[in-house]
């Protein structure tokens, strides 16, 4: 079942073409990693999918029961957030905002849902702690729980492991993998880290303004671009 299809998407960033003629499809249950060099248009594509930046030409369409405002988004952290006075529970609960409809306050079911997601990520014991006092890994778990509150269908993660040490990022990959396998959450992840991308993901989208590769991880490793980018055993 196709959940997201991008057809001939072209996007510009400050008058330069950041993304050119990009087409790919995401099936329900996919674990897709978007890789590419800096400035290859990864972040621009994410903003296009989320509707934060308009598309110059082409279409980005959602189907299969997913709509644009049902994407759980894990953004790159901003400076404002790192020093933000908010409890873990407040942050996670704010993911339920799109379930409130027109009510001004959260209902019982939304608070319960927030608690369920806190437990799911193993952070219920720190729910009253302040977000700014947490370690980087814990902060990412909180943001992941918030994203899950918004949706269980599709998660979009923008460089989730930036600034985390290898052990913590390994744990985070495990959690994301579990969500994908056990709760069949579709995962779209932008990553610098190609070695982890090919280890955990099932599909790869390699961007360099246009699409250099799109397909299964297995085929990516055997492709020219994949071999060059992953090092192919010998570093040039």
């Amino acid at each position, binding site marked *: 079942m196709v959940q997201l299809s991008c057809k001939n998407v072209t996007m510009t960033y400050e008058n330069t073409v950041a993304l050119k003629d990009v087409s790919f499809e995401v099936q329900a249950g996919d674990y897709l990693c978007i890789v590419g060099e800096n400035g290859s248009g990864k972040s621009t594509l994410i903003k296009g999918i989320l509707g*934060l930046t308009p598309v110059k030409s082409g279409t980005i369409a959602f189907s299969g029961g997913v709509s644009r405002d049902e994407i759980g988004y894990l953004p790159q952290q901003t400076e404002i*957030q790192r020093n933000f*006075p908010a409890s873990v529970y407040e942050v996670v609960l*704010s993911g339920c905002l799109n379930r409130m409809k027109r009510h001004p306050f959260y209902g019982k079911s939304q608070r319960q849902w927030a608690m369920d997601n806190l437990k799911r990520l193993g952070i219920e014991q720190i729910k009253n702690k302040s977000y700014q006092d947490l370690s980087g890994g814990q902060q990412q778990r909180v943001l992941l729980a918030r994203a899950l509150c918004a949706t269980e269908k599709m998660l979009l993660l923008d460089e989730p492991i930036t600034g985390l040490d290898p052990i913590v990022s390994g744990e985070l990959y495990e959690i994301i993998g579990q969500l994908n396998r056990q709760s069949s959450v579709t995962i779209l992840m932008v990553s610098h880290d190609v070695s982890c991308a090919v280890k955990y993901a099932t599909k790869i989208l390699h961007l360099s303004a246009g699409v250099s590769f799109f397909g299964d991880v297995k085929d990516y490793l055997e492709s020219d671009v994949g071999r060059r980018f992953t090092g192919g055993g010998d570093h040039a």
Partner: protein
Amino acid sequence: MLEMLIGLFSYDFIRRALVVGTLVSLCAALLGVTLVLKRYSMIGDGLSHVGFGALSIALAANLAPLQVSVPVVVIAAFLLLRLSENSKIKGDAAIALIASSSVAIGVIVTSLSQGMNTDVYNYMFGSILAMSSSDVFLSVILSVIVLVMFVFFYHRIFAVTFDEGFAKATGTKVGNYNILIALLTALTIVVGMRIMGTMLISSLIIFPALTSMRVCRTFKTVVISSAIISVVCFFLGILASFAFSLPAGASIVVVNLAVFGIFFIVGVIKEKT
């Protein structure tokens, strides 16, 4: 002490200032938390200067001050928000530009119509005598609107403050809430600047939020404690102004500064233990 309090409440103009001031302190404290966290503090400062220009023109044209300045400052709030969203640095400069231009126009209009006088001084630094009984009525209504709106949209304001990108991606109309925040700020500033003065009203917005963030670590506690701090500082400031015949606005700011100092030290000690 008790005698002084009774004395304080025996004056009509002080009772009026206390009613309006308490409400404005509450509004400013609540909005201040969002404005400081969103890095919008400068907008508050810019708006108060625009308010000065509007007040001077209203006075020169013999119009009711609030009825003129409310729409002008609201429009300015929309403009400033646009400017600061487009680009950070340009926005900052643009706010300074608009602020100083408004003050300049206000001063020229006043000096042409009646010469520089105590009115201008009062607008700059506030006056406890500023509130007439008809002003009080409108001020109370505006403040109550701000308070109700803030409580009603509390969770959405939190979401938009913490993470605009996420809120937008999950279907929240972020732009509308930013406009709402600017609008509420504009109303608060127009109502508050009569007592506090153009130069000092933005401190009412910034101080309580910064003070409570020294010690409090969650959004709810920051909001509640800054509301309490704001009202307490307002009362102490008015009391000091009455007891020592000091200007009201300046006294309130100095009390806020003292409380900030105390919270700062408490915060540092808390961090170390």
